[in-house]
């Protein structure tokens, strides 16, 4: 069974910025109820260099994040190692984490970013109404996708 990490990042104190975190909470409960022991979850305010630590032990990593991009409700995007530094390195991109993992451990998991469309970013914990709808749709989609990943053959 493939070992999968779902990692949410963002600040749930900044309204829709918490979409990735809330998705991970939902996936964690769902995986536990389903008995999917190979599905692990983690979350933080942002990604940083320590997130490359032992990342190579997973087959698949999915980074869930709120998005301001022009997408519909959500988008799953496969990513490759990226060695370009961000211009503001208080956090790093998922591709940078994967790139660092590759340099440190010489192997990387198949990696995705799961973008969930957000709209409001104020000092609030409640999601905007549209973000709530996006979170629900994204959750349904990702659960199906994870089950598909689990059943894939090596």
């Amino acid at each position, binding site marked *: 069974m493939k070992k999968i990490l779902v990692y949410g990042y963002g600040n749930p104190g*900044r309204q829709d910025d918490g979409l990735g975190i809330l998705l991970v909470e939902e996936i964690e409960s769902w995986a536990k109820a389903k008995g999917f022991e190979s599905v692990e979850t983690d979350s933080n305010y942002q990604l940083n260099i320590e997130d490359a630590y032992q990342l190579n032990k997973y087959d698949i990593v999915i980074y869930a994040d709120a998005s301001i991009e022009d997408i519909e409700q959500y988008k799953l995007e496969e990513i490759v190692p990226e*060695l370009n*530094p961000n211009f503001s390195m*208080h956090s790093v991109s998922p591709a940078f984490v994967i790139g*660092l993992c590759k*340099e*440190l451990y010489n192997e990387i998991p198949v990696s995705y970013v799961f973008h969930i469309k957000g709209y409001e970013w104020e*000092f609030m914990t409640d999601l905007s109404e549209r973000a709530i709808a996006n979170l629900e749709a994204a959750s349904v989609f990702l659960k199906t996708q994870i089950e598909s990943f689990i059943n894939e053959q090596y």
Partner: protein
Amino acid sequence: MGQKITIEPVTRVEGHGKVTIHIDNDGNVNQTRLHIVEFRGFERFVQGRPYWEAPVLVQRLCGICPVSHHLAAAKALDVIVGAGTGDGLTPTGEKMRRLMHYGQMFQSHSLHFFHLASPDLLFGIDSDPMTRNVIGVALANKDLAVQGVMMRKFGQEIIEATAGKKIHGTGAIPGGINKHLSNADKDHFLNGKAPMNIDNMISWSQDALEFFKDYHSKNKGIIDQFCEFPSSHLSLVRKDGALDLYHGVLRAVDKDGNIILHDIDYQDYTKYIDEEVRAWSYMKFPYLKEFGKQAGWYTVGPLARMNTAEFIDTPLAQKEFQLFKDYNEGKPSHKPMHAHWARLIEILHSAEKMKTLLNDEDLMEGELVAKGKKQSEGIGLIEAPRGTLFHHYKVNEHDQIDMCNLIVSTTNNNQPMNNAVNQVAVREMSKKPEITEGMMNAVEVAIRAYDPCLSCATHALGQMPLEIALFDQNNKLIQKKRNV
């Protein structure tokens, strides 16, 4: 033709800012400013909220140093619930908070050194930006990069074990802490499989210091002569003059090391410190009232702490502190690049402190919370990784926050950062026919020495691309450049 060069935001600095450099008709730099360009009022946001929410609410400021805000707010609220001004907590309450704080200091400083500073040291200030980052370090010195990653990880785990969770930690509450350390966590940190245990973290902290000292011995030009200007320095110190990152009295020394702020109780800080607003920046300029707006500015942070403290109470860090003091002939260091050295000494100190605390039974048992007579006002100070952090609250009869004032570390360093940028810009960019990437990064290196967190400093949220814009004397755009 006079020119105005803009660098925004400054790369590998927490948050966002920009630098404008004005060049006159003769090609000389005649004005340099570090600007903060976004603002959202967190201090007003918390008004009307129940005071006990503050230690969690303040973590919304940014995700860079939430633990420092969490603890500073909790310390202010200790006063409000009558638990004293830093010395009234139960042994368990204070020691758990200290462990959380040393974990934060350890991971934050490790990130700065391995991720932000070491690339400049390893590859040079004018090297290709594409290699001047932690992946470049990994390619050139994998052991160093692995150590940086694992030291960050260890510090994060300490925070999670004490604060309860990584996001919006709830560990520190008004009057104390909400949990003990579990025996499993204690055993993990003390006796975990190598290299993830505290003894190894101490050893790696020493290795990082040796790396820096070796580099320093071979590159004195960069470390000692890159930038230098006289400054006063301010920090908390323990009552006996020891370095204390969690609590103490407020001390400032002048450029010669003479004490000019005499170990005051920080509950009285408004008698001694004020903040000036300048039209061109959202970030205020704090100063010591006694010396006025022009002369009263000061530096905070690791270098300031080395300059104000008389000794360190952990043996390995004390040995390194003495080397640092001897090198500077017992006087304050005014070299911003020495902040990297100071930061490494504090990494070692924090690791030693964590080991002592992890062996302390008070973490596993004892009263968690102290209470007393409620007060209407409280001030909490802490030495955050970037320097002294002030949280000041007033609450009304309905237990709502009426007033909040935050002076964050980066705000305290506003004037010295501007001075450092100006000095480097004058040297690197005057009379030069072309502004190179290396020159631009030299300015950023000067800022990075302070490890600023600009989103905290303005209590702001926002993202901008890295943009460099060149203007003539009439503010007409000549050139615009984005790094990414």
